[in-house]
């Protein structure tokens, strides 16, 4: 039993030694029972998504290039696209060779084609008649027997302003007058109540809205001053004024225009024209004053003589300027109409100083370059055509005639006797190159002094002699002193008369849509010589 014990103890010791010694036994691998049981039940049969083989073929990255930058009133050049595009010239060549014949055949067919002659499509509702849309007036001004001296549409075409004053007063007048505005797009427009009435201490003779800021309006007064009002300010609409300085006109201002400022963009200068012979350009100063920038003066001696006008004796006198119009194509060229009856072509780039006009802060220049054949009476209105490059312009005066001049020759291209009455205002249509409107009234005809004022619309496409439409402004017979087309809503025409009313006329469609060949007719008209 001892031996057994020793053996067992030795075995126990060996077992103990085995138990307590470091041994690295193989890792025991135990099969997972539950997983194999589970996967035994299911087997991958088929996979719906096939293996996706990916390979980079092309990368769609974004190539951007500035085609054009639209910033305020500046013209940025578009980058030259020809250098930046990768062109496959051989395929381009084969393409061009393929299409060349087809395109040339079509081009040839086109200029010989008579298929579309006389084919016209009307996209807008045709309006056959001329309607009076609104009759606006300010009763207080009418009670004072004031007349409408000038109308103007604002930059957006929705507000019409008029100035009340007197045109038939010869004396110095200290009557106060009004500037009234109506917003035609407002609902609840009351024709007898203007949206804004500005009291002006002196008679306002002319008005002009700013070409881009819809609330600024400039007016020229009988006293020779210029005032700029801001219609958005309720308390004191006066923004700038010239005041009475040595520079201001000594005679009534008959026309005021806004000019784009060459030096400072987005700013405009004011130009005023008066019968004292001076044409002055004003710029705005900070304290609300208008300061003279440059000026021109028309003196009789400095008007270039022309052989046909020898019979008019020009003395050394200032020549009263009644109207002015700038050429839309060349900002330095403008046409003035003078009391002596002729129109002058002038340039702002003149270098000769004007005689006999000293005492102004800025020396005045003599701008006259060319004299045109005269009317039988003072010229009341000139207007340059917005369509023709060689600058056709119209002039009208108290002889009842309208002259269509080209700036290249002194004799008029067309001289129309529109009526026996005075013509106060003439304007080209802003949409149709062959249409213009003239306002007439007054006149000493058959012992009747007052004739019904008319607005005549002439269409050269229809007739060269007779007006296409003559609109009777008022049955009471007051002359029409001023008219303006609305450049934004081209079917509207505003006309103001001596009874103190402004009528807004809606023109029929033939006056608002340009015909297909009108520019050609205009060119033909201009190139004919009398």
């Amino acid at each position: 039993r001892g031996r057994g014990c020793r053996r067992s103890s030795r075995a126990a010791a060996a077992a103990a030694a085995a138990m307590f010694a470091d041994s690295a036994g193989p890792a025991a691998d135990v099969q997972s029972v539950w997983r194999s049981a589970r996967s035994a039940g299911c087997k991958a049969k088929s996979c719906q998504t096939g293996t996706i083989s990916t390979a980079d073929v092309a990368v769609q990255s974004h190539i951007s290039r500035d085609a054009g930058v639209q910033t305020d009133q500046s013209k940025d050049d578009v980058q030259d696209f020809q250098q930046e595009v990768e062109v496959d010239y051989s395929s381009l060549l084969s393409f061009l060779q393929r299409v060349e014949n087809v395109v040339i055949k079509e081009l040839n067919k086109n200029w010989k084609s008579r298929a579309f002659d006389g084919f016209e499509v009307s996209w807008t509702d045709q309006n056959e008649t001329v309607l009076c849309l609104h009759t606006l007036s300010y009763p207080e001004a009418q009670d004072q027997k004031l007349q409408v001296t000038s109308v103007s549409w604002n930059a957006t075409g929705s507000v019409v302003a008029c100035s009340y004053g007197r045109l038939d007063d010869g004396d110095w007048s200290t009557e106060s007058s009004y500037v009234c505005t109506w917003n035609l797009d407002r609902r609840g427009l009351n024709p007898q109540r203007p949206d804004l009435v500005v009291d002006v201490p002196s008679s306002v003779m002319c008005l002009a809205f700013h070409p881009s800021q819809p609330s600024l309006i400039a007016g020229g007064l009988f006293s020779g001053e210029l005032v700029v009002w801001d219609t958005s300010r309720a308390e004191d609409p006066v923004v700038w004024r010239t005041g009475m300085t040595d520079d201001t006109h000594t005679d009534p201002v008959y026309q005021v225009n806004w000019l784009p400022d060459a030096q400072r963009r987005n700013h405009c200068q004011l130009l005023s024209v008066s019968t004292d012979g001076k044409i002055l350009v004003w710029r705005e100063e900070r304290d609300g004053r208008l300061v003279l920038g440059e000026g021109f003066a028309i003196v009789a001696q400095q008007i270039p003589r022309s052989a046909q006008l020898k019979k008019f004796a020009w003395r050394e006198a200032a020549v009263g300027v009644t109207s002015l119009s700038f050429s839309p194509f060349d900002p330095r060229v403008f046409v003035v109409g003078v009391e002596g009856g002729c129109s002058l072509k002038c340039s702002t780039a003149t270098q000769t100083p004007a005689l006999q006009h000293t005492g102004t802060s800025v020396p005045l220049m003599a701008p006259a370059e060319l004299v045109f054949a005269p009317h039988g009476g003072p010229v009341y209105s000139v207007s340059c055509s917005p369509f023709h490059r060689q600058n056709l312009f119209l002039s009208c005066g108290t002889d009842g005639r309208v002259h269509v001049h080209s700036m290249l020759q002194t004799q008029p291209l067309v001289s129309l006797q529109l009526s026996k009455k005075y013509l106060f205002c003439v304007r080209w249509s802003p949409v149709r190159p062959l249409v213009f409107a003239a306002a007439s009234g007054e006149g000493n005809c058959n012992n009747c002094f007052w004739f019904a004022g008319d607005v005549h619309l002439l269409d050269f496409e229809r007739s060269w002699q007779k007006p296409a439409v003559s609109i009777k402004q008022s049955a009471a017979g007051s002359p029409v002193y001023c008219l303006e087309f609305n450049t934004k809503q081209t079917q509207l025409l505003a006309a103001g008369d001596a009874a103190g009313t402004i009528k807004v006329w809606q023109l029929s469609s033939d006056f608002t849509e340009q015909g297909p060949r009108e520019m050609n007719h205009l060119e033909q008209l201009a190139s004919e010589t009398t």
Partner: protein
Amino acid sequence: GTPIRSTMDNTTTVRYAALLHQLTRHARSTVRDIDPQNDITFLRIRSKKDEIMVAPDKDHALIVVQNTSD
């Protein structure tokens, strides 16, 4: 449409290219909608003042503007 060559000034060219590219695509889809076997060969737009002609292709298009008032 990216302009490659042009005889007009840059701004006009870019405008014509962009606008006419869209119009050509629309015209093409219109024709093919009506008859899937058909495809456009030439596009002409006549307006009051001129006529625009487009000769389209898979990769290129030629645009010609012709004045029609004589």
